[in-house]
């Protein structure tokens, strides 16, 4: 096995860990956001026409 291939496999291992960490962080953040009531904030914003978004101001 050459050095380049070893480095690639080590890099892939690091990326897998980083991916798992980001995915776990995403799930945790979603939970924290729901607990803080941010999901409710988003829903309240989303069920009324956003006049700024449609260019009315």
């Amino acid at each position: 096995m050459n050095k380049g291939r070893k480095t690639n496999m080590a890099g892939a291992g690091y990326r897998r860990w980083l991916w798992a960490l980001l995915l776990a962080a995403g799930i945790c953040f979603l939970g924290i956001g729901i607990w803080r009531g941010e999901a409710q904030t988003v829903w309240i914003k989303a069920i009324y026409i956003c006049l700024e978004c449609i260019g009315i101001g």
Partner: protein
Amino acid sequence: MGKRIRFWVQIAFTALTNGYIFGFLTGKIYTGPTKTICVPGLNCYSCPGALGSCPIGALQAVLTGGSRFSFYAVGFLLLFGSLFGRFICGWLCPFGLAQDLLYKILFPRKRKNLPGHQWLVRVKYLVLVILVILLPMVVTGEFGQRSPWFCQYLCPSGTLMAGLPLVASSPALQEAAGFLFDWKVALLLLLLLLAIGVYRPFCKYLCPLGAVYSFFNSVACYQYRVEDTCIQCGKCQEACKMDIRTWKQPNSPECIRCGDCIRACPVQAIQKEPLFRGRKKEE
């Protein structure tokens, strides 16, 4: 075949996330519980058909509400980004689909990029930091209210999918439309016209959601890999409308995973590889 599959996935996902037909017929938006959930693409929640929320809109909604950080919106972005990266841009975003369709229109001098492309691609990161995060957090109006700067002054997806259908169906909104509406329509028209001659100009240069997902391309579940059989002929870059040197950077932050490079490679050196699948051992 692959191109066709992508096209139909784009159509199906756009229809799924904007499937509230009653909204288009009556000029009213959906108010059900699924609006709590962010969809992965740039999909304005004021679109009459929208069944979910825009992640950028959700982020700004929380920031303009007084919070300094939105765990909920960032959680969605981390989740979508780590799973898909910019695959979302290429396969699941309605405004990306609109630009793809416009690029199919015959035009004598089509080009991949605008002049100054190498610098212009960085503008979307400025849009993300300044218009999406900083200004909504910091700038307050005379009554202490904060504004969603990106949605209000720039987002063409909101104008196309929400502004135009809602204003068209409501005399009251037509009365209220003023300079801001004219500005947003003009900006939308400019981008749509540009998209006929230049491939996906909004995605390349202005989209803050693309900017976010670009950070995930090298670690997302969906990956490309270049085999040792690559002969560096450059056909992948020729075929790539995002103008990426795929043989050098198969997981470039600009790659929207359209698969054109895979189809163009004469030696099938570019492979799709989920991150969690290990490479075959050497014999």
